[in-house]
């Protein structure tokens, strides 16, 4: 018996999964194996079949493994691993199949097919690995196990945790962010504690809950990983504040770790459990403060291919026959939303299981409230199909537009591409006529902010007008819709910021002057003229006196508006630095291309002179200040000395008069003495001399008012 060990797993499996028929199967299998590997089967006392396998010599069995160990660069045989996984998943799928047939009616496929292991995840492989890697970095702190070196380490943390303590996953709904968080946490050996929007997340309740989960030990073996789902709601600020507090107190605790504790009780706790947060909208205002503390991982929609593969598997296992084309339609319809796909698939399968035939039109009504993307729609507005009746086409367009509902985007798209499509027109009559409709759209869309958007529904008419006027058979190819509105907004914000910055600085410097210039006249008049003054080219000037005057004037201006001449990289010149004004005045003032070119070609020269002048003035001013200060200091000391001299003289006089020794010409001789003293007394006050640490120093008037 010592040469064989019972293979217990097969017993377990047969107990778990074998019904009455399962046992029979295992006997059959044993028979097969028997011939191949030389296993033996025994019948136990209770009539069960126990299979015993001959222990094989380990050196032979691990042949591949030993080879790998000899050569470090060889790595693990990926094919062998894949084979193993495949065989496992095949057997698993088999079991799932059986389970599925039992639970067919009462479980949503979305739940049933929710990925359970890392390899089940669809798409986003790189991102998934990144999440896993982050979670693995916690292992030294949580499980006290060491990691292989290549997983990059955070050298500042004694516990070797990742630098950012929270992982923030964001992306559109339905692509498996929550699933990934769960699966990967499980894979890495954690128990998942989820807090989602259905839980009360305000105030102290959530604080207690989080602190309990994070800092208390659990009874089950595996440690907890906190998954905070859907944190971008507007009411979550309390919850987010708790998260921020936890991370901050952890940062403090980490800093204190090296330092021996003082008598005071240390309230800051080390964070030893990973936190994964999930949200849809990364730019929600509630997340503003949390974001810098997080490792942010964006999730993208899975590719159609991988999604198709997944749906195919589901169909095969569930026994649904579906045409590959309708599958594709289903994917198009959901725009990569895996959850929506699987949902739709289930209802489609249950609804039409009797009739296996399917056309693309059949799947249409099942989409959630939405159809093709807005840019696709915009292009289809301009493409007239010669084979369909125009009335029919318009009505289907109107249906799609209303389903999409993103009227503003659609109209904007139409507006941005209509000059590029082909249509017949006499001059610009059609564009001038569409302007009325754009006004109509503007008014209707404005109701969004005023009357609860009651009038929004009429917006759908405007894209139809576009279709009516500009739709043509000749438009076949899709035109890329550029979002110029966004760029425009960004640029505008940039200009606004610079103007505000300049206005603020000058206001701070001399409110009495700046208050006369409003923000608007700054943009309209002052800054453009200021710019042209600064760019004045004086180098050719013959008259030195005039030149000097101009430079003085300019230097004063620069100083007043707090503008600096700096060397800066420009986009169009690779790596070469040119002189320009900072804050970039030219960028907000110049519109003309010719003048913009001048900034690059002509200006740096004149600015160079200006810079030199500026520096010279500064140096001179410093010098003047210094001499002024020196003189003032001397004056002050002299005054003080003479005073003390006077005082001392008086005391002497006082005593002398007391004793009748009156010397009337004492004061005259006092003056040279005091002058003599002055030099000595210069070194009289020293830093840290005597009882106090205070510094005694003469302060000149000029330093107070500079």
């Amino acid at each position, binding site marked *: 018996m010592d040469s064989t060990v019972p293979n217990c797993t097969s017993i377990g499996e047969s107990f778990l999964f074998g019904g009455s028929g399962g046992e029979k199967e295992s006997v059959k299998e044993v028979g097969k194996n028997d011939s191949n590997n030389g296993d033996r089967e025994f019948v136990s006392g209770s009539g069960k079949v126990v299979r015993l396998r001959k222990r094989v010599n380990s050196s032979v069995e691990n042949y591949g493994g030993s080879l790998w160990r000899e050569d470090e660069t060889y790595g693990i045989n990926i094919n062998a691993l894949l084979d193993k996984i495949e065989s496992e998943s095949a057997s698993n799928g088999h079991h799932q199949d059986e389970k599925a047939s039992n639970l067919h009616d009462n479980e949503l496929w979305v739940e049933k097919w929710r990925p359970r292991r890392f390899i089940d995840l669809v798409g986003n492989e790189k991102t998934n690995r990144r999440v896993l890697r982050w979670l693995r970095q916690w292992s030294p702190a949580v499980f006290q196990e060491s990691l292989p070196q290549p997983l990059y380490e955070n050298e500042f943390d004694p516990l070797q945790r990742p630098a950012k303590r929270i992982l923030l996953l964001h992306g559109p709904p339905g692509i498996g962010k929550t699933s990934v968080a769960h699966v990967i946490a499980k894979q890495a050996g954690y128990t998942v504690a989820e807090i989602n929007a259905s839980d009360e997340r305000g105030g102290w309740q959530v604080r207690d809950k989080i602190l309990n989960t994070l800092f208390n030990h659990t009874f089950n073996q595996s440690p907890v990983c906190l998954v905070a789902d859907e944190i971008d709601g507007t009411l979550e600020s309390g919850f987010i504040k708790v998260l921020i507090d936890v991370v901050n107190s952890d940062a403090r605790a980490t800093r204190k770790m090296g330092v021996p504790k003082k008598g005071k009780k240390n309230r800051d706790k080390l964070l030893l459990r990973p936190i994964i947060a999930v949200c849809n909208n990364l730019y929600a205002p509630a997340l503003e403060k949390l974001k810098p503390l997080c490792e942010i991982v964006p999730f993208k929609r899975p590719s159609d291919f991988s999604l198709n593969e997944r749906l195919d598997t589901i169909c095969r296992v569930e026994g649904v026959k579906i045409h590959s084309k309708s599958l594709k339609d289903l994917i198009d319809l959901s725009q990569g939303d895996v959850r929506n796909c699987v949902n739709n698939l289930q209802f489609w399968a249950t609804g039409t299981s009797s009739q296996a035939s399917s056309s693309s039109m059949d799947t249409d009504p099942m989409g959630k409230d939405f159809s093709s993307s807005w840019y696709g729609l915009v292009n289809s507005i301009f493409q007239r199909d010669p084979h369909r009746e125009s009335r029919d086409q318009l009505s289907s367009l109107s249906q799609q537009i209303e389903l999409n509902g993103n009227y503003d985007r659609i109209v904007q798209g139409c507006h941005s591409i209509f*000059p*590029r499509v082909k249509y017949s*027109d006499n*001059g*610009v*009559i059609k*564009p*001038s006529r*569409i*302007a009325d409709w*754009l*006004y109509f*759209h*503007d*008014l209707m*869309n*404005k109701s969004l902010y005023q009357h609860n958007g009651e009038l929004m529904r009429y917006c759908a008419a405007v894209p139809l007008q576009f279709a009516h006027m500009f739709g043509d058979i000749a438009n076949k190819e899709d035109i890329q819709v550029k979002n110029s509105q966004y760029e*425009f907004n960004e*640029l*505008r914000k940039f*200009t*606004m910021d610079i*103007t505000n910055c300049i206005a603020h600085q000058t*206001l701070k410097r*001399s*409110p*009495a*002057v700046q*208050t*006369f210039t*409003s*923000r*608007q*006249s700054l*943009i*309209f*008049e*002052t800054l*453009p*003229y*200021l710019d*042209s*003054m600064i760019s*004045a080219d*004086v180098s050719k*000037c013959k008259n030195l006196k*005039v*030149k000097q*005057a*101009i430079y003085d*004037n300019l230097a*004063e*201006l620069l100083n*007043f*508006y707090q503008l600096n001449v700096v060397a800066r990289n420009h986009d169009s010149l690779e790596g070469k630095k040119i002189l320009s004004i900072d804050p970039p005045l030219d960028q*907000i*003032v110049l*519109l*003309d291309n010719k*003048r913009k070119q001048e900034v690059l070609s002509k200006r740096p020269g004149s600015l160079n002179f200006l810079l030199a002048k500026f520096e010279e003035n500064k140096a001179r001013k410093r010098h003047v200040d210094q001499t002024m200060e020196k003189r003032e200091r001397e004056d002050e000391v002299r005054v003080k000395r003479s005073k003390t001299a006077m005082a001392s003289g008086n005391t002497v006089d006082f005593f002398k008069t007391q004793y009748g020794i009156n010397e009337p010409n004492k004061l005259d001789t006092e003056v040279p003495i005091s002058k003599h003293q002055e030099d000595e007394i210069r070194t009289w006050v020293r830093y840290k001399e005597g009882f106090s640490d205070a510094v005694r120093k003469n302060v000149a008037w000029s330093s107070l008012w500079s």
Partner: protein
Amino acid sequence: MSLWVDKYRPRSLDTLSHNGHLTSVLQSISQQPRDLPHLLLYGPNGSGKKTRCMALLESIFGQGVYKMKIDVRQFVTPSNRKLDLNVVSSAYHLEITPSDMGINDRIVIQQLLKEVAQMEQVDFQESQDGLAHRYKCVVINEADSLTRDAQAALRRTMEKYSRNVRLIMLCDSVSSIISPIKSRCFMVRCPAPPNDETVNILNYVASKEKVQLESDEVLKVIAQESEGNLRKALLMLESMALCNEMQLKKSTPIIKPDWESVISKLATKIQKEKSVGCLVECRSFLYDLLAHCIPARTILQELTFALLRNSSNEKAKIAILQTSSIFDERLSLGNKPIYHLEGFVARAMCSM
């Protein structure tokens, strides 16, 4: 000092330059500082509203009004958001600019005015009759951008606290000021200086700054081009002087802000060509202008004037004016300036 505009700004009522009758009105107001009414100064950009306002304050309170400081005040909106606002103030007055605070101007005005109103001034030794300093002045810049709510909030405050607060409001046009406010204010119109007065002022500044003038012609051109905007005229003079070695001849080219030259270029383009391609070019120009914070209505106005200047046909002129007024309405009612500006361009192309 800095720019010539600021350097040669009159600081007291006696030195105010143009429109003498207005100065005499202000002087008579300042004779009896106790009876200073709430003032509403209105007039075009660069006509010296603020200068007059400060000069008036100076004549009432003395030089101290020019000693200004900024402090950051914090206000709390009803939705518990905190607002930081820079308030420029001297010992005798304070200034607010509604556009700094966006839609929350009502709260700021209420809180600020109440705060000022409920504090009685006690330091009034220096005035002649001992009562002049009983009140503090609040200067509201750009009063036409006050929201309706803010204006409504103002009107009761103006009466109730008139013992301690006097308002001086400055705005370009009174059309967006509600009538209750207008009736509570003494309205003073500050007209733009006529061209010959502008020339005089320019002449004075030029002689002070030792700019060599060949003749007055160039100053006349500057006055013409600045369209009554004294600030613009002075800036123009300074930049022209600096760019031309302090010598101005009759032939010296006028320097215009880029945005104006771009708009006039746009106008010639519209008149030259009517096609979709041209429309696309115009669109990029318009986007550029808007992105440089030039308000849409200003663009429309300038464009209309440029078109009118260029066209000789009387009929076309009327058509342009008509379209322009239609689209002006649309701009003020709608939210999306680019649609309407482009619509105007297309319509103008058609009407040519």
